[in-house]
């Protein structure tokens, strides 16, 4: 098996000859990785995923999954991947079990095998007791789990998750991630996901790409991305009224010191080690530290740094927006 499970090269999608949704992006996802695609609404996350899962045809460029080209070998790609879409796509009029079996049929899995797999998966996502109930009666969390089960019926080597926790409450989100982690462990897949919940990306992804305006602005592990911001921020105040910026700078690993009306904002690598050193240095010169706080950068700061702080109006197509609303409405129901 190739080490590079997904390899995108200059992937581009232009809608209606003018709207550039995805603009020449290239990236690789390694075997067994959880790769997160982060970005504001309309950045091109869903469009990218839809190209990778062969639903949209790229306008330019291509990608390969496990060495198979998404355009030339689309059908092979399809049989190797699993998809958990953003919307709730399960048929409301059918039962959970019927929905999974329908998916199995679409992959051409023989009934004998698929019956066993379906029951296993239902057990895994804890829907066994609801399997003969119509999906209509399911809650948002249950529907999400059913989508997961459907996406896994063909034992995919790569699982694509498009905003898997969109519209779910905090508890259900946490529970959904537990399922995803368990499934990943069970089946040893590579995961490609999009999300705009940063804490989820931070906790789950091995590597992240931040995409904005259809372009990847930065790629790296959550740790690398945070470090790229220049380290932790220590804020401290002293009793005395003298400027000690120079003194602080003389302590090692300090990158930047700003005096904001007696409160010092210090950018430093490994703040938890540097902090005590600064206090020590100040005390030795006879200053008294009255207050100190340490902030480690979160993915939030990384995200803001790379995508800009302004809120975005949705640039997604009306269709995508409507689908989003339908999903939310169903999740609430």
């Amino acid at each position, binding site marked *: *098996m*190739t080490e590079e499970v997904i390899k995108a090269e200059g992937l581009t999608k232009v809608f209606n000859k003018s709207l550039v949704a995805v603009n020449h992006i290239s990236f690789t996802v390694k075997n067994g990785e959880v790769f997160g695609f982060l970005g504001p609404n309309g950045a091109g996350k869903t469009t990218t995923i*839809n190209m990778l*899962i*062969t*639903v*949209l*045809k790229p306008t330019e460029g291509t990608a390969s999954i*496990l*060495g198979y080209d998404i355009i030339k070998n689309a*059908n*092979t790609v*399809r*049989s*190797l*991947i699993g*998809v958990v*879409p*953003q*919307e*709730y*796509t399960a*048929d409301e*009029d*059918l039962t959970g079990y*019927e929905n999974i079996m*329908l*998916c199995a*049929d*679409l*992959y*051409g*899995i*023989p009934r004998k*095998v698929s019956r066993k797999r379906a029951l296993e998966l239902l057990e895994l996502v804890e829907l066994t007791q609801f399997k003969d109930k*119509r999906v209509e009666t399911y809650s948002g969390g249950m529907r999400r789990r059913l989508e997961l089960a*459907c996406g896994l019926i*063909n*034992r995919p*080597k790569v699982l694509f998750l498009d905003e898997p926790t969109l519209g779910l409450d905090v508890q259900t989100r946490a529970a959904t991630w537990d399922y995803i982690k368990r499934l990943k462990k069970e089946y040893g897949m590579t995961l490609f996901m999009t999300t705009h919940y940063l804490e989820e990306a931070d906790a789950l992804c091995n590597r992240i790409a931040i995409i904005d305006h259809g372009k990847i602005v930065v790629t790296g592990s959550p740790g690398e991305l945070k470090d790229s911001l220049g380290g932790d921020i220590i804020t401290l105040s002293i009793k005395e009224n003298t400027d000690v910026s120079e003194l602080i700078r003389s302590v090692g690993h300090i990158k930047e010191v700003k005096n904001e009306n007696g409160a010092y904002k210090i950018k430093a690598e490994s703040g938890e080690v540097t902090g005590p050193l600064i206090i020590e240095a100040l005390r030795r010169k006879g200053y008294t530290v009255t207050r100190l706080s340490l902030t480690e950068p979160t993915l939030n700061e990384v995200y803001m740094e790379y995508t800009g702080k302004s809120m975005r109006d949705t640039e997604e197509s*009306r*269709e995508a927006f*409507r*689908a989003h609303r*339908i999903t939310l409405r169903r999740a609430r129901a």
Partner: protein
Amino acid sequence: MSSTNEYHPSLLRGLWALTVRELKKWLKDPVMLLMFVLQPVIWMGLLGKSMNIKEMFSPTSLGNLTIENITIPGSMVNPPVSGVVVIPGVLIAQQLQQIFSNIGTTVMQNTFGVADYFSFMAVGMVSMIVMTTAMFSGMSIVWDRRLGFLDKVISTPVPRTAIIFSKVLNATLRAMFQATIILALAYMFGLQLSPNFTLLNMLGVYAAILLLGIGLSSAFLAFSIRSTRMERPMQIVNLIMMPLMFASNTFFPTTLMPPWIQAIAHVNPLTYLTDALRQLIILPLEVSVLITDFIYLSIFAAVLSIVGIMLSWRYLTR
């Protein structure tokens, strides 16, 4: 671990799975099912029974005939008699009424091919239900697209042909099912079957429905597949349904229509379906006419389904 998956779906398997899904959805909504059957039943009851055309020729529609006695000079009768002969008006009126009602049956027979309008119209109703079902059921693809179901199906290795054909097959199966119900109900309400009617004719009925169903539903599928909203295809159906229905022999024989409507009726596939059904169900079967009907319907089905399916295929992946 091999890097390809061991299973691949066959066309038939996928087609069957997707069609069963649609049929299950349909059967699980008994209210909609009832509405679909109820509508033509109401039409049948109201139009077929209220437009009691045969009654126009009953003696009562002549009203109270008062005919004065006619006096004829005796020399004009054969053999001649002397004086005058008086024919009582009442007798003439009676005769006229008798003749009138005899003419009625002949006129009905010559116009509609059968003696009662209800039988004529009930078969037309079957065509109507076939047409509406075929046009409407392809539209569910709009919902499939909006709810993301279509994208999910596209992301599976199921043959694309199966995705498109499942919609067409579903529409056609529904149309056949409903046609059966309507025919059974019509029979209960007094449809006069042709004396030559056998179960074999029923196979012909299904074949004709299949052809029109395939043609119409492929055309509408191609149209709906690009729409993101239900309203547009819905409006189109509404727009063309009435003209298709009335510019055909569904409710009235085309021979009595003005030439320009006849011209439309002559290319309207509904005319050929209705005629084929009438030939098979209520008329004394004319084989040459039936063959013409079937040839036309086959061409219609072939052309529209090829065009429809090709377009649908193109629009499936954006």
